[in-house]
């Protein structure tokens, strides 16, 4: 004990700087994406006439709602160092099947529950193969991407299926509460719950632990396979919600919905500072990342820029973010792997 006492003052200094570094490192990318978002907001506010209007901003929130819902769940998956590529196809399948069963006269509430259960089941299959059978999730979900898109195409024969606008269920996509679009409200609630679960519950702690050092977590007695499976159930469920949001907003279920959706979601998560190697996650960053993508898409359209540029700009920003992540922020100890 006497021996450690001599080193006390020195040690306090090192840990203070360690803490400073750790805090900057942990939040650097979230701060960076927040700055990018603010710059974009200011830029579009001055360059596009109708950008900074309440109507447009609410519309923007409605546009990014599906992305934000799935990105919230994807943050959990990526935190475990996993990935779910099947969410776009699940969006298409759930939207298509919702429209089809409604056309067959199903009760909308029953149809909604069934579609959400289907999404969770797809996630369960993803999670069972990845977590219990140790097959790389990239491969498992890539296969599911193909299977689910194919199933959606087979179910619809490639046609869009209309949804009757008189059913209450279309309010999920088109309704407003106190002027705010329902999808935006749902997305914000889901993101907040996601943030709470990730940062304040044992499950969230285990998700981070699984991505950080899964073996360590397993040795403490946590059922890591169950945690690993659950995160895929979350993305499956979230993708089904997104599918319902999109189909009810358009009053139509299409097997072509959600093409490239998985990449947009992953972009939002990674932009926010969640590490693809797992262990480091920021739900606030994910929200900011999704907003950034939405602002780019919305702003460029208002500027009458060809919509084809949207993807180019989004991709460029992703590349820049990853570059900053690995080269600039690494200096603050943000990357340890």
């Amino acid at each position, binding site marked *: 004990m006497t021996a450690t006492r001599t080193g006390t003052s020195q040690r306090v200094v090192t840990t203070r700087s360690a803490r400073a570094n750790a805090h900057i490192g942990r939040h650097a990318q979230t701060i960076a994406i927040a700055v990018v978002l603010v710059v974009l907001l200011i830029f579009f506010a001055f360059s596009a006439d109708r950008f900074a209007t309440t109507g447009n901003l609410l519309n923007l929130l409605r546009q990014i709602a599906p992305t934000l819902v799935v990105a919230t769940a994807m943050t959990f998956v990526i935190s475990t160092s996993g990935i779910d590529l099947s969410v776009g196809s699940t969006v298409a399948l759930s939207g298509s099947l919702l429209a089809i069963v409604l056309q067959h006269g199903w009760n909308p509430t029953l149809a909604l529950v069934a579609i959400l259960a289907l999404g969770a089941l797809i996630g369960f299959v993803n999670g069972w193969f990845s977590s219990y059978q140790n097959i790389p999730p990239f491969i498992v979900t890539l296969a599911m991407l193909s299977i689910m898109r194919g199933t959606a195409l087979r179910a619809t024969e490639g046609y869009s299926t209309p949804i009757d606008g008189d059913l209450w269920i279309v309010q999920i996509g088109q309704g407003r509460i106190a002027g705010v679009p329902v999808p935006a409200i749902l997305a914000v609630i889901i993101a907040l719950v996601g943030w709470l679960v990730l940062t304040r519950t044992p499950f969230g702690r285990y998700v981070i632990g699984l991505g950080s050092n899964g073996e360590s977590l397993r040795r403490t007695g946590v059922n890591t396979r169950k945690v690993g499976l659950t995160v895929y159930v979350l993305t499956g469920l979230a993708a089904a919600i997104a599918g319902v949001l999109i189909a009810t907003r358009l009053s139509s279920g299409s097997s072509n919905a959600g093409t490239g959706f998985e990449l947009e979601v992953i972009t939002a998560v990674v932009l926010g500072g969640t590490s693809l190697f797992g*262990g480091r996650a920021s739900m606030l960053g994910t929200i900011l990342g999704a907003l950034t993508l939405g602002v780019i898409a919305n702003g460029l359209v208002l500027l009458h820029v060809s919509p084809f540029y949207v993807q180019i700009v989004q991709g460029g920003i992703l590349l820049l973010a990853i570059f900053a992540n690995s080269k600039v922020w690494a200096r603050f100890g943000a990357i340890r792997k």
Partner: protein
Amino acid sequence: MTDQEAGRVDRVVMRDIRKRYGMVDALRGVTLRVGPGEVVGLVGDNAAGKSTLMKVLAGAVVPDSGEIVFDGRPVSFASPKDARELGIEMVYQDLALCDDIDVAGNLFLGREPRKAGGMMLDVRKMHADARRHLDALNIRIPLTDIPVGGLSGGQRQAVAIARAVTFGPKLLILDEPTAALAVAEVETVLELIKTVSAQDVSVILITHRLQDLFRVCDRLCVMYEGTLRADLDAQNTSLERLVSEIVAHDEGEKEGRRR
């Protein structure tokens, strides 16, 4: 430290434990006994089977065959959780900390204080408890809210040991606890072992630092190629004798293979 009366129940007896990995016989029928409050040094060359044997005892590895009796009752562990529930704690050689989680979070990983009916983490209680436990063990980490990835090797080891000790185990297994530590920190750990065993906690200490063993151990068990080669009384054994048992030579060339 504690007298082993003939009638007293052993804390743990491992009998004829066997484990094979593919073509490698990691454990070939090992029998090990530890009394309450006893400190047993488990030594042997690399790949002698020490770590595997201890992982079996901690429930991290399921043996192919063999029997474990804990406090007089036969037990079997399907997972580390089973072993932990009986009061067996292990500090692993490779630290087994989550670098991205803070000090308090690592201390309580897998058994976090909860509130709201078990739904939510009680973060405040976690940090307060962590501070109390670290202070009680004289571990000097001023802040419990920094990720352990930002700590020094010695501090990380201290956190790993604190995690095991602070939950009142009956049997504590330390796998190379002093390997990465500075001299002063080794002293702290050895003191810690003495304190813990005085409270009737059994300790199994795996180490390559043979000089540590004679300071704290009651018995020394030597493993060699998956078997228990010798069970020695620490008081009446010389360093030379121990080394020759480890390298499985009767005399001579005993230092050669150590370093």
